[in-house]
């Protein structure tokens, strides 16, 4: 007993002499789960420790007086507390809040698919876009996602019952008037922009932000690359042509120049075409990309491109056995996109951009001359300010001017449209688990002399670490297509309302997403406009009295875990839609929609031969087509669509240079797809619309000169 007293006396004495204080406690997260590995220390001293597996910690300090106790841990907000160190032991129970910038915060994502390297919770990576499908085209890669249609006879993204012109392509926040090469009858043209120049893609199939307008169905938002990482010269040799590029990198700036020549003639000699080409497509593309880092946060981007090409072909005239129609097209496109982006005064983000696109098309249809001239200017300013924690306010304005001229034989048409828009939007994180985006957009169109106000809402609620529920509502307006405006200016904006509800799970290797939607169309432009093929339907007046709806379910599943080296995704879309627009006599399911669409993409990396092999299978049930002999308008259904394509990228070394050999075959199984039928004027004769060739094969080689080791 005496000994114990003495001992404890000594102990008290010694701790008094050395002034030792024991600090202990427990660190947990907001749901009381212990956090092991948190760093607990007294500021400005070496004293501290890490928490154990059960979240507890304990350390002693010789310090006395007022100190700041700090707890820090990866993925969590730092915690600090003033404590007074005396002779008493301290016991502290501390809860850490998750840091909202890390993985594990709710993300506003109803309606959209994002591909990015920067954000972690995304469905795709930029490389997925390049390595999907058979032709490294952004648009064909996106057609493997739910919500899109498999349309083989024309270009464009047909989203959730919408026509191709209801989808807008936006590059660095600027709308692009003509993202595709010029249209050719019954043959889809490619996108004009190389997938390699983008670092991020957001493909919204509905319910998108108030920052974008003039698209009833969908926006494709592309972000270009920043500074080129290094000096690099590359050449490409393809079955269709050849090209070269050079990137030069300086300390704070970079410039890339690219040029390419294509001529499908030689290829068509080998790969027999059904299309009767008179002159195979031939053309030249060139572009310059400049980047200047103006400060730590400031970036100036300028992109300039020019392309020129021509082609001619003959196609059967269904009204005559001996005569064939002749079509010649020469097209030129000039495009500039420049923008500046910076962060000012800590939390103000400024974006300013200007873009111009000049399209010129000269056609010859039999003995008639036709053509089109578009000059499209856009200027846009967006300011964004952080208001509190992760919440921010975005506002800005946009001006677009489109000068449109077109002619066919002796007929001339033109109009000049000035479009003004302003938008205000708040992204608010109510908690780490609940966020909302509330926005409004106001637009004015000079040509139709109309103004609108469009509300947009999107909410996201996180259920667990990896899954969340999303809801979006929005109203969208679009000025009627130029083809209507040439006939009448007496139109209102076309509109659509989107209601979207989704559940998604984004794990590190597996993703699941299911989305149901309802879309209501109003004031769709009606009227009979000159278009091919001519339907021989009663003349319809030019009014804004069209309407329609679309509803459906989109399902997406991606898995990179189950099979070694294999990454696959599966998409399914169900679509029920009808509309009354253009010269439709009644509400009907349009030709560009199939009720069921299914696709599966699988990629396997084979390390032994450094090759990636990809397979894409698409299936869609038959689409409606117009048969003048059927009293029911659009009452016929085509046959089901099927396509299995294969692509392989072999990574290798040629002439001491890093080389990718790319090879692809479309429609391996040789399935005979029919996209619809063309009819003669009297309806007595018809011809199926077929792909230009049963199968298409492509081979190309991309060589990075002097680049021996991509590591």
């Amino acid at each position, binding site marked *: 007993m005496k000994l114990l007293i003495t001992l404890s006396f000594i102990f008290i004495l010694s701790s008094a002499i050395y002034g030792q204080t024991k600090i202990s406690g427990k660190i947990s997260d907001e749901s009381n789960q212990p956090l092991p*590995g948190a760093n607990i220390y007294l500021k400005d*001293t070496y004293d501290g420790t890490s928490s154990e597996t059960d979240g507890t910690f304990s350390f002693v300090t010789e310090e006395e007086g007022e100190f700041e106790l700090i707890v820090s841990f990866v993925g969590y907000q730092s915690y600090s507390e003033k404590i007074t160190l005396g002779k008493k032991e301290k016991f502290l129970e501390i809860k850490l809040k998750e840091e909202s910038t890390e993985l594990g915060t709710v993300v506003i994502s109803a309606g959209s698919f994002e591909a990015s390297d920067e954000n972690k919770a995304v469905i795709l990576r930029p490389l997925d876009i390049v390595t999907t499908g058979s032709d490294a085209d952004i648009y064909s890669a996106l057609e493997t996602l739910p919500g899109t249609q498999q349309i083989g006879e024309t270009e464009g993204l047909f989203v959730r019952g919408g026509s191709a012109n209801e989808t807008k392509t936006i590059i660095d926040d600027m709308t692009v008037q003509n993202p595709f090469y010029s249209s050719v009858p019954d043959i889809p043209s490619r996108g004009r922009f190389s997938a390699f120049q983008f670092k991020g893609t957001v493909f919204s199939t509905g319910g998108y932000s108030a920052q974008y307008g003039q698209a009833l169905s969908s926006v494709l938002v592309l972000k270009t690359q920043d500074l080129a990482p290094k000096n690099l010269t590359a050449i490409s040799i393809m079955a269709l042509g050849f090209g070269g590029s050079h990137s030069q990198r300086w300390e704070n700036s970079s410039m890339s120049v690219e040029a390419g020549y294509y001529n499908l003639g030689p290829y068509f000699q080998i790969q027999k075409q059904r299309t009767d080409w008179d002159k195979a497509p031939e053309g030249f593309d060139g572009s310059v990309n400049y980047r200047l880092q103006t400060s730590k946060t400031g970036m100036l981007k300028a992109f300039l491109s020019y392309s020129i090409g021509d082609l001619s072909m003959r196609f059967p005239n269904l009204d005559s056995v001996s005569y064939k129609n002749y079509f010649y097209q020469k097209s030129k496109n000039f495009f500039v996109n420049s923008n500046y982006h910076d962060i000012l005064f800590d939390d103000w983000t400024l974006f300013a951009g200007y873009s111009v696109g000049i399209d010129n098309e000269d056609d010859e249809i039999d003995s008639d001359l036709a053509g089109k001239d578009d000059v499209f200017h856009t200027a846009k300013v967006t300011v964004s300010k952080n208001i509190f924690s992760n919440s921010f306010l975005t506002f800005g304005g946009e001006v677009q001017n489109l000068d449109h001229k077109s002619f066919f034989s002796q007929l001339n048409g033109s109009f000049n449209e000035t479009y003004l828009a302003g938008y205000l939007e708040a992204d608010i994180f109510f908690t780490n688990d609940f966020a909302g985006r509330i926005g409004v957009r106001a637009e004015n169109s000079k040509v139709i002399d109309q103004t609108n106000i469009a509300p947009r809402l999107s909410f996201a609620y996180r259920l667990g670490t990896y899954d969340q529920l999303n809801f979006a509502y929005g109203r969208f307006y679009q000025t009627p297509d130029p083809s209507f405006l040439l006939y009448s200016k007496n139109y209102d904006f076309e509109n659509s309302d989107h209601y979207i509800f989704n559940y998604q799970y984004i794990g590190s290797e597996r993703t699941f997403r299911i989305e149901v939607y309802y879309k209501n169309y109003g004031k769709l432009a009606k009227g009979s406009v000159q278009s091919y093929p001519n339907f021989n339907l009663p003349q319809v007046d030019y009014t804004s009295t069209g309407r329609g709806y679309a509803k459906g379910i989109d399902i997406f599943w991606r898995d990179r875990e189950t099979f070694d080296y294999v990454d696959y995704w599966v998409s399914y879309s169900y679509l029920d839609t009808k509309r009354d627009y253009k010269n439709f006599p009644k509400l009907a399911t349009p030709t560009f929609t199939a009720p069921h669409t299914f696709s599966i993409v699988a990629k396997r990396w084979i390390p032994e031969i450094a090759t990636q092999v990809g397979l894409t299978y698409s299936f869609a049930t038959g689409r409606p087509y117009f048969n003048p002999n059927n009293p029911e308008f659009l009452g016929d259904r085509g046959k089901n669509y099927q396509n299995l394509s294969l692509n392989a990228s072999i990574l290798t070394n040629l002439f001491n240079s890093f080389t990718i050999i790319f090879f692809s075959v479309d429609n391996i199984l040789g399935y005979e797809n029919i996209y619809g039928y063309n009819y003669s004027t009297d309806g007595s004769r018809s011809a199926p619309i077929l792909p230009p060739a049963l199968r298409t094969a492509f081979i190309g080689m991309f060589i990075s000169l002097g680049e021996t*080791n991509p590591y």
Partner: protein
Amino acid sequence: MRRSLSVILSLLFLTVAIADDKYEKEIKKNLQKIDECKTPNDFIKLANNFERIAVAEKDKWLPYYYSAFTYVLASFADSVNSRKDIYLDKAIKFNEIADSLQPNNSEIYTMKGMISQARMQIDPMNRWQKYGTDATTNFTKAMQIDTLNPRPEYLIGVGTFYTPQQFGGGPTAAKPILEKSLAKFEKFIPENEIMPKWGKEQVVDYLKQINESK
């Protein structure tokens, strides 16, 4: 007067010396622990120790650098990709602070390259283009600043070792690079005991592995 001043001065130096001595002792003590770490959590705890020293010292780059280094090692030890990225985010943060305290330092640039390498390893197919280039740029810069630093070549050599032959990698391609690194290690004398000196045993191991496989 003069004498008392000198006493004060010498006392002052003494406290500084004691403080410095404590700093060096702590760094040394923790450096010895690196080899004992096995689980990601072991590395995190060690990184925490370096972080405490760093925050207390404020103006010394070395503890920040070592904290970054141990976070990179934690990312190698962990098996979950999303966690690896979070560790590397932290490593970058600390290494950036080190860089701001000691600009143009070969070791810090080596660490930048090492972090990029670690980033790339998480998803090589999607990341080699960006992070492979980043790593090369930083290693090149590290070698320019200090031609005698053996670590950039050690890491380039290891990267090459694991790169498939088709890309110009593999053991045969790695061998001369690792040999160069070893030659530099033989001559390398760290400024003092707490300066970076890691890597030599690993280079020897890799070279042994390459020679045995032939």
